[in-house]
């Protein structure tokens, strides 16, 4: 069973990225095994590739993987013009990769000089356009400035310049172009509130937007919701992303990521009907994405068919690699906890009584640990049940509405009685005080 999955997945992945290079990768990329850095990095392009590689290198404990990540980051940076980042990476590498990965001073100087020249040229051009008051040229001027700053890693300036083009946008296309740029820079800077606002701005343009852009905007919105810990909204956005996304947004997100983020968020926050009918399992569109990460697909299916042990197994395997993802890493724990709790609740839901020993087996945990987890869920009122600690059985318990109503009625009556009496007393005191004052005045 496993072999079949891998080869079919492997073949599809080979199709997706053509720079498979020398070795044929027939293992899926985000999998339970150690992360294949080259394959992972090849999913992305631009600045995010570098950022992700650096993040992996910082977090990874495996020396070999770390070095490989730094090496690839170095190569990638050298292709660009970001000398600041270059210096940082060289410092982190710290001569450990050999002489050709040291600080290449002539290169940095050349790049810096070129940058100065280019900046001057752009400034002159922009001033000329501004005096001429040609809207389109001014817009292009600011845009070029934005691109320039972005390439050199000055993200705040890039953002400012992109936003300045807003006043000179004439068609919807311009507006969308500006929004996409702003979104890109905001994601890099980690300011996801801007992302949300620019996504909504782009979606409000009167003309129809082409499907690729729609897919891009949905991804961006999903990322913003993920960072804001609104997992349900994030899942919805990711699930609505069209398959047209393909490889068109590799400067931000890869289709595998859409599948992983969407799948995990959906599992953590959707209820059962949503999971099946509306959104995930029967969602043909999303199925294309899920094929890219068969482990996530398998774990969703296992959860739905109540094979909790294998579902939690897959989750455990994926954890190490997910912790290396820049967007997901600080949400992994929360999402995992939520999925685990949902599994526990779903397990106990159909039964009147549950043997805790069998349940502990199903979840591959000890009875004592399971008891503690169930206690927390019961106290939170997520499971209506009581634990018989002597025989280790969980009994479902439904509140007696009639008794509860009587209790509430009597309590309300008492409170009313008490409050009205107190109020009459206070009114009396006030009247007395007032009379006292009035009589003194008179």
């Amino acid at each position: 069973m496993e072999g079949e999955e891998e080869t079919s997945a492997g073949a599809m992945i080979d199709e997706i990225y053509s720079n498979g290079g020398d070795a044929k990768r027939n293992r899926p990329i985000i999998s339970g095994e150690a992360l294949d850095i080259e394959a992972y990095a090849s999913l992305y392009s631009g600045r995010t590739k570098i950022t992700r590689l650096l993040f992996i290198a910082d977090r990874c404990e495996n020396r070999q993987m770390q070095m490989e990540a730094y090496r690839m980051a170095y190569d990638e940076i050298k292709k660009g013009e970001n000398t600041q980042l270059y210096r940082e990476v060289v410092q982190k590498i710290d001569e450990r990769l050999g002489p050709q990965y040291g600080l290449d001073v002539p290169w940095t100087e050349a790049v810096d000089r070129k940058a100065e020249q280019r900046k001057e040229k752009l400034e002159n051009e922009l001033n000329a356009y501004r005096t001429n008051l040609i809207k389109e040229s001014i817009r292009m001027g600011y845009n070029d400035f934005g691109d320039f700053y972005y390439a050199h890693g000055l993200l705040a300036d890039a953002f400012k310049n992109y936003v300045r083009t807003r006043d000179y946008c004439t068609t919807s296309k311009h507006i969308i172009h500006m929004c996409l740029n702003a979104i890109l820079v905001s994601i890099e800077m980690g300011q996801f509130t801007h992302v949300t606002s620019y996504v909504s701005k782009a979606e409000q343009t009167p003309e129809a937007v082409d499907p690729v852009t729609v897919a891009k905007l949905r991804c961006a919105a999903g990322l913003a919701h993920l960072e804001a810990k609104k997992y349900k909204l994030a899942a919805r956005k990711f699930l609505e992303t069209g398959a047209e996304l393909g490889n068109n947004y590799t400067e931000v997100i890869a289709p595998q990521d859409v599948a992983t983020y969407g799948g995990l968020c959906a599992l953590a926050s959707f209820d059962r009907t949503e999971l099946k009918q509306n959104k995930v399992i029967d969602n043909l569109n999303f199925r294309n994405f899920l094929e890219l990460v068969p482990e996530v697909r398998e774990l969703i299916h296992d959860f739905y068919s109540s094979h909790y042990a294998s579902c939690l197994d897959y989750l455990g395997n994926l954890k190490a690699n997910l912790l290396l993802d820049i967007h997901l890493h600080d949400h992994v724990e929360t999402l995992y906890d939520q999925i685990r709790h949902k599994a526990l609740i779903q397990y106990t839901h159909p039964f009147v009584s549950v043997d805790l020993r069998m349940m502990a087996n199903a979840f591959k945990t000890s009875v004592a640990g399971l008891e503690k987890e169930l206690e927390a869920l019961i106290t939170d009122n997520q499971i209506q049940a009581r634990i018989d600690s002597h025989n280790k059985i969980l009994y479902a318990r439904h509140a007696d509405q009639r008794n509860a109503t009587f209790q509430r009625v009597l309590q309300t009556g008492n409170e009313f009685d008490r409050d009205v009496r107190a109020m009459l007393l206070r009114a009396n005191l006030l009247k007395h005080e007032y009379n006292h004052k009035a009589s003194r005045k008179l």
Partner: protein
Amino acid sequence: MDNVEAVVTQIQGLSGGSSDVSVLHSFLKQADDLLHTESTRLAPFLDQLDPSIHSLGYLYLLEACTSTPILKEQANQLVVSIASFINNCAAEQIRLAPDKFVILCKRLRDQVILLEAPMRGVAPMLTAVHKLQSSSELLTALHPEFLLLCLLAKCYKTGLRILEDDIFEVDLPRDFFLYCYYGGMICIGQKRFCKALELLHNVVTAPMSTVNAIAVEAYKKYVLVSLIHNGQFSATFPKYTSSVAQRNLKNFSQPYLDLANSYSSGKISEVEKSIQTNREKFEADKNLGLVKQVVSSMYKRNIQRLTQTYLTLSLQDIASTVQLNGPKEAEMHVLQMIQDGEIFATINQKDGMVSFQEDPEQYKTCEMIEHVDSSIQRIMALSKKVTAMDELLSCDPLYLAKAGRERQRFDFDDYDTVPQKFNI
């Protein structure tokens, strides 16, 4: 001498019908100073009068007689005489001179405390309270005195009987504060924490123009009783609390608020720590006993929470969850709670297990129906009272004057609900 004799004859003559009594009353008011000057020689004249018939006159004479400083030897005799007077006097007559009566009873209280036998004063004071109040809804100046004697004599049950009456009218705010404060203490002594909370709440939220010491002390006890009874304390005051109280009460009770904060953490160790740091302050306020009750209430609350989650639980697990010292102690606590009716459970000593059960109350018995019915009647009566009070107030000239004053002066087109006459 003659004048006093003249007074006595007047008393004897005019103590018949109610019109005579009112004449006598005005006469006595004029003769009051005379009586006070002759106070040392009044004792033999008292024997000529019968307290039950000549109550008003007897009262004046007795009050004048006791106005001089009393020697220790005479105190006993004095207590006896005042007590017998109170028992025998006629209520209608003394209600004509309530101030004198109150002064007399306060002297009784002083003497009884001086003699260090507050118990002797309890019964007479109770009779005095009943005779003085024209209706059970009226708070007199004697109520707090009575409660104070009950507290000192430690006979709380008698005090409770008075507290059962609902009070709706108050003469002096100070009486009210003292009444509620002492009443709260008596209820705490009887472990009726619900009623104590209500009384202390009334003190804390009563309208006041300046902070008084009674409110401060009451607030401290209020925090502690709230923790014991409700398991939580909210530091926000209700809207109707006076602004003076809202601003100042917290400043005096910081140690108690700290204790409330550590209680909300749910850990015994934190509460113990908080108590240790503020121990002297609690002792100085004489609240240490109450603080210890707060700690034991915490154990109770933790055990109660377990009943929501478990059907059966071993004593060992209870001890470890609630942070007790061992299964034996857990057993003791659970046993005590079962006896007090705070939880429903059975202890199986052989297995060391406790089984928790549901509240067996089914709300199907006749007693329950009667209880609900009487509550309904009571609340209907209360609503009627509120409506009546509202109507009364809207006819009150002082209130109308104030409302008239604050009305806009220039809205001639609007319908005037307050007549112009009250535009003072």
